[in-house]
């Protein structure tokens, strides 16, 4: 089957993108330089075509119950430190599991209204997730619709994202008011009353969300498939004045790995969804002793068996390429490497990892880049354990860490990001 194309395919080819098939779509890997694109998201902003991602709508009186049963996060207890219920205008990350507790896909669930939810899953996964949800439906009171290919999406990620969007949107001050991390406003298609709450100066309705896949401050933007090309052109032109550049999937992959975010079907997949760096995606009670709700796949995770997934960071930028083994210092095989990429924005300094965006970076700091990613091992490991990663051509020593790229900006309040000082 020929690869699918997003509505921005012609733009990518006209702008020199190196393309590769990802999730069934011909997508840009980079335009000029994947390294510059990665760095731009830390220093200015990066613009990503993410129209390959799939949207599944779940509507009806039982929509909440259906998602509450199929989604790992407890929708009745997920907002803020006090675990308030999900409410319209808020989104939450989690996963859809099989009966065995394996990952079908990860997702962000956006609550559009009391009985209306938008579920955003990975490229090519719309039909499978829609089928899964339809099969899980107990009554007929929830309508599941796969909108794959019918929604346009792009991400604006980086410290200048709000400043750029401030020029693109009508009444940006009102839009940015009360919009913390994982909040969203507006809408697209025919979904009053939210549609129209966020509109470009050209009058295009958007759903604007404080989410993303880079770990950095910014937005995901959803609109009608036939409107995304115009929105993209507008944001590229505006962004250009602020040093924002279009970015491909290579930068997206290295940014998300440095931000300790999993790639579905690579870092999470056909094994039990637990003992991983994303416990917030499971409905643990505050004391972590048990789950706060019954959900599909949950029984298989209580108690949770192996494997264990850990982030790691290398000593320098050298990588191994999967398939690669994880060894201890006595060369015993502990497991396998899931992801290994280079985050070009970080480097070691005085026994800690520093980023080009770290406020306290040394004045002469020059990020040499560090390999990083995830390993999956059979037994638990203490933090800071040194591991050897071995592929067919080399061995590298890495350290098991809680976090990789420091000083990320994703959670910063919009108001503090609106007029960042240029250095």
């Amino acid at each position, binding site marked *: 089957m020929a690869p699918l194309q997003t509505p921005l395919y012609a733009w990518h080819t006209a702008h*020199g*993108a*190196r*393309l590769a098939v990802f999730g069934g779509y011909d997508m840009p*890997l*980079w335009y000029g*330089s*994947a*390294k*510059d694109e*990665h760095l731009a998201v830390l220093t200015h902003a990066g613009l990503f075509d993410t129209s390959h991602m799939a949207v599944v709508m779940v509507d009806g009186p039982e929509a909440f119950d259906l998602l509450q049963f199929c989604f790992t996060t407890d929708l009745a207890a997920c907002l803020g430190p006090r675990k308030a219920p999900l409410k319209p205008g808020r989104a939450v990350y989690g996963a859809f599991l099989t009966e065995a507790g394996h990952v079908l896909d990860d997702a962000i669930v956006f609550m559009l209204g009391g009985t209306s939810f938008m579920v955003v899953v990975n490229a090519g996964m719309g039909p499978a997730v829609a089928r899964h949800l339809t099969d899980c439906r107990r009554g007929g009171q929830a309508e599941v619709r796969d909108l794959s290919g019918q929604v346009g999406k792009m991400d604006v990620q980086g410290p200048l994202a709000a400043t750029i969007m401030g020029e693109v949107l009508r009444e940006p001050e009102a839009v940015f008011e009360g919009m913390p991390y994982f909040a969203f406003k507006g809408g697209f298609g025919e979904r009053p009353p939210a549609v129209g709450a966020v509109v470009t100066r050209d009058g295009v309705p958007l759903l604007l969300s404080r989410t993303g896949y880079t770990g950095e401050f910014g937005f995901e933007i959803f609109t009608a498939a036939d409107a995304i090309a115009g929105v993209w052109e507008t944001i590229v032109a505006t962004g250009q004045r602020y040093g924002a550049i279009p970015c491909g999937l*290579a*930068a997206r*992959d*290295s940014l998300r790995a440095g931000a300790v975010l999993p790639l579905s079907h690579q870092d999470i997949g056909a094994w039990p969804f637990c003992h991983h760096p994303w416990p917030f995606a499971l409905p643990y009670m505050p004391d972590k002793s048990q789950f706060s709700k019954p959900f599909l796949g949950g029984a298989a995770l209580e108690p949770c068996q192996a494997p264990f997934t850990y982030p790691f960071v290398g000593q320098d*930028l*050298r*990588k*191994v*390429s999967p398939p690669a083994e994880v060894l201890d210092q006595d060369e015993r095989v502990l497991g396998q490497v899931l992801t290994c*990429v*280079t985050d*070009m924005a970080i480097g070691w300094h005085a026994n800690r990892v520093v980023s080009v965006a770290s406020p306290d970076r040394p004045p002469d700091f020059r990020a040499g*880049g560090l390999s990083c990613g995830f390993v999956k091992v059979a037994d638990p490991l203490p933090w800071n354990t040194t591991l050897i990663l071995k592929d067919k*051509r*080399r061995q590298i020593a890495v350290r098991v860490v809680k976090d990789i790229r420091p000083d990320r900006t994703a959670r910063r309040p919009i108001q503090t990001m609106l007029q960042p000082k240029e250095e």
Partner: protein
Amino acid sequence: MKELSELNLPEDVRYTKDHEWARRKGETFQIGITDFAQDQLGDIVFVELPEPGDVFQNGDEFGTVESVKAVSELFMPLGGEVATVNAALEDSPELVNNAPYTEGWMLEIAASDPSEFDQMMDREAYLEMLKGS
């Protein structure tokens, strides 16, 4: 990505199917990767090269080039002993992207059989191969 017509394919080097090039320099041969190869790899952030004195057969893996995304092997365009390596690539691997046939050269080798050079593709044959791929 560069169109074929945009590729820099000098006349004074010979090419391999693995996208390495070699240039005769008196008694030795200078080798590196082609403009097509660097364009396909994207940003090169690390180059791993052998030591002077190491000996390789034609087609042997002699090192790696590492982009942000992947690690790729380098293959000897002709057999011989490594005479010199380009030390500048240690600190400036991007030279391979910016000047693949000049400052981005990788090795100089004393060929064990210089006639292997004559069997490599010339510009025209290499371009034909690229058109077919």
